[in-house]
């Protein structure tokens, strides 16, 4: 550990805290339909596309209609992506002449991208054409991120609405999220990354003789444009198999710092947007504070844990930092911070191999995801996930003091609690059930790479990450086998892992989203009660503590037994397996 490592972590959080109200206020103005600086540039395009998709006078949608539009849009997007992946060989921008991916891997990949997961059973540079990366992976980085933002805005409106059942119009929100938020930030971000050394070209891979006389094939592609949007939109699907570890994606320490900021910026900003829409900025800061403290706690464990040698290094007589699976241009603090940021958020783009993290260090990313992706979380999904936890915390508090729970002056009743419970329990159930299924069958065991408890950890991580739409991995876990040359020649999928994982991603994305929209629909227009003597305030430090406790306890009760079998065992023993 170094002072500069800690300083960098603190600096990140200071900058993030500064950016949050600025970007959050901007997003608020955009979705309120107010004029912003960019209106002049993208206004005409916005009006035309909105009219095309939502009609000349877009009507407000109730939660069911809003959800219906999301599901239909996602279904068509899924289909388009699946077709792109399966017909790669006949498309343009395929300088390497790659064939199409196997059907089961394509199923997993299409599900991964439309669910904003970015789980990669494929290695992009060796299996995907530039067209599939641009028109497939990157487009859905935008689309799924925008769906997340739009759905969060709709949920917030439902929480805030004093009257009426309308949550907004999905198509209008989708276009605004894309044109005013994701696209401009992606343009700025990708140009910055190119300046730092990320590549951006459509040329074919270059073959040459190395200095020592060997041969090397430089895999090239439109990397920066895709990197920017997969970070901002929290899909996190890297251009290369190793994602941000690849210097062409994450070339320098400065680039790495900015990339982490790009991952966290929008999910953090949405807390400020929330505070503004509900008319009490402190409500937003309370959520932000919970996220910040939990984030800091995770970083404070992961960084020291990775600054120690792993048991395997000790056994070989080597001391110092756990550098297995990490690149030298990044500090261990960079790698630990990246792992925390990528998993606390829904992004999943890490710059180091989590599979090689120490037992304790590797348990942090897993635990982050197990909180249900609410520590910043995915763009939009983090916020509505957090709001579900807020309702739960309010309910618990209400039970403790024997009062009818209320939030923002609205009564929380049986219907909301049922929906919240569904939203909070569905994903952990999927994770545990699928992990158990995979670990107890021959088909599931095929994907495991490491021996001993790490093999279990890989499986648990795979389903945790997929069902929570994170996308990071203990990447030894296999869902795609490519024995020979690149370009999908002779490749096959591990059907069990591909299909169960794909299903987990889709259900894990849309069930909580629908639950959140339904809660919002139920709260929308509910009569508000004026705050009185006995009202529990939800914009205070005490409530923030209660909320953190609720999140931690729900995650702990659900997952500690399974964490014991994997990462905890490894953290406690010097034994090798």
């Amino acid at each position, binding site marked *: 550990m170094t002072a500069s490592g800690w300083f960098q972590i603190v600096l990140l959080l200071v900058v993030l805290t500064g950016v949050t109200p600025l970007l959050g206020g901007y997003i608020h103005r955009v979705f309120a339909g107010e004029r912003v600086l960019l209106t002049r540039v993208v206004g005409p395009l916005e009006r035309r596309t909105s009219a095309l998709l939502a009609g000349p006078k877009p009507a407000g949608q109730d939660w069911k209609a809003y959800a*219906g*539009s999301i599901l239909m849009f996602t279904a068509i997007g899924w289909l388009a992506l699946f077709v792109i992946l399966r017909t790669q060989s006949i498309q343009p921008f395929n300088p390497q002449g790659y064939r199409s991916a196997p059907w089961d891997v394509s199923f997993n990949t299409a599900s991964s991208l439309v669910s904003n997961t970015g789980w990669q059973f494929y290695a992009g540079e060796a299996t995907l054409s530039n067209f599939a990366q641009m028109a497939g992976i990157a487009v859905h980085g935008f689309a799924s991120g925008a769906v997340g933002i739009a759905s969060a805005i709709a949920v917030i409106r439902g929480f805030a609405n004093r009257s009426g059942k309308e949550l907004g119009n999905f198509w209008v929100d989708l276009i605004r999220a894309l044109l005013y938020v994701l696209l401009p930030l992606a343009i700025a971000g990708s140009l910055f990354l190119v300046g730092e050394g990320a590549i951006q070209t459509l040329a074919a891979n270059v073959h040459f003789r190395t200095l020592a006389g060997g041969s090397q094939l430089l895999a090239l592609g439109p990397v920066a*444009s895709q990197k920017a949007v997969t970070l901002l939109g929290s899909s996190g699907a890297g251009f290369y198999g190793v994602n941000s570890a690849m210097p062409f994606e994450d070339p320098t320490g400065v680039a*790495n710092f900015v990339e982490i900021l790009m991952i966290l910026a929008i999910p953090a900003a949405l807390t400020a947007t929330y505070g503004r829409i509900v008319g009490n900025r402190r409500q937003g800061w309370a959520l932000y504070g919970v996220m910040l403290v939990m984030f800091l706690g995770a970083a404070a464990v992961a960084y020291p844990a990775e600054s120690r040698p792993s048991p395997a290094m000790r056994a070989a007589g*080597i001391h110092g930092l756990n550098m*297995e699976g990490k690149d030298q241009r990044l500090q261990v603090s960079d790698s630990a911070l990246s792992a925390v940021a990528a998993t606390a958020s829904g992004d999943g783009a890490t710059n180091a191999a989590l599979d090689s*993290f120490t037992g304790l260090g590797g348990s942090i990313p897993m635990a982050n995801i197990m909180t249900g992706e609410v520590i910043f979380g995915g763009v939009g999904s983090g916020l509505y996930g957090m709001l579900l936890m807020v309702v739960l915390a309010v309910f618990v508090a209400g039970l403790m003091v024997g009062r009818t729970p209320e939030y923002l002056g609205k009564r929380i009743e049986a219907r909301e609690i049922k929906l919240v419970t569904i939203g909070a329990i569905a994903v952990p159930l999927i994770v545990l059930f699928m992990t158990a299924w995979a670990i107890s069958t021959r088909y599931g065991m095929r994907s495991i790479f490491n021996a001993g408890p790490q093999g279990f950890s890989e499986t648990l991580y795979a389903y945790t990450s997929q069902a929570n739409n994170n996308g990071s991995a203990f990447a030894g876990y296999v869902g795609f086998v490519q024995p020979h040359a690149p370009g999908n020649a002779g490749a096959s999928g591990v059907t069990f892992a591909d299909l169960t994982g794909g299903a987990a991603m889709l259900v894990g994305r849309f069930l909580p989203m629908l639950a959140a929209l339904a809660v919002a629909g139920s709260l929308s227009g509910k009569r508000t009660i004026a705050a009185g003597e006995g009202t529990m305030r939800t914009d205070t430090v005490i409530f923030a503590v209660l909320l953190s406790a609720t999140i931690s306890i729900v995650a702990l009760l659900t997952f500690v037994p399974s964490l014991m079998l994997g990462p905890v065992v490894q953290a406690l023993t010097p034994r090798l397996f």
Partner: protein
Amino acid sequence: MLRQLRSSVLAVILLTVLLGLAYPLAITGVAQVLWPHQANGSRVDRDGRLVGSLLIGQDFRGEERYFQSRPSATADDPADTAASNLGPNSARLASEIRARVQSFLRREQPYDPGLTPAMIPADAVTASGSGVDPDISMANAAIQAHRVAAVRGLPLALVMRLIAEHTDGLAGGLFGPVSVNVLALNLALDAAHKS
């Protein structure tokens, strides 16, 4: 329902054209004009011939006159990137590290007799995350300098100076540790050797 279907199909087409083609092609155009060196992979030529990318490590194993890159799970293949993904308690990882320690000592000890296993920096015997790590640590470079200087018949001080010149670590290591770019250093060595 039909209306939503129509909007969905239109939206997917629109997004594919605008964000899947126009956006990346425009960024490619701008990047190629503003930063052609970076956009094409920070390539370096020598005598008019491409010899590598400054961001991509190369395999120098068996070449004693060169500084050696970090171990790689892929023999430094940028077209098939991978880490070892071996777990922290992996017996296979332990035996791989042991083998790397042995080969590191075999290579460096003749030129640096005081070298013991405990002095070997972690980055020299662990596989990188990308498989194509272009950098090594200062400590790693300082050990290798003895061998490189001896094999090339160059003064150690000159080799150490070249290391210092090819060291980066912005703001005293605030953003990324102080590390040494192996390809740039080896190219500089070749140039110094010739003159």
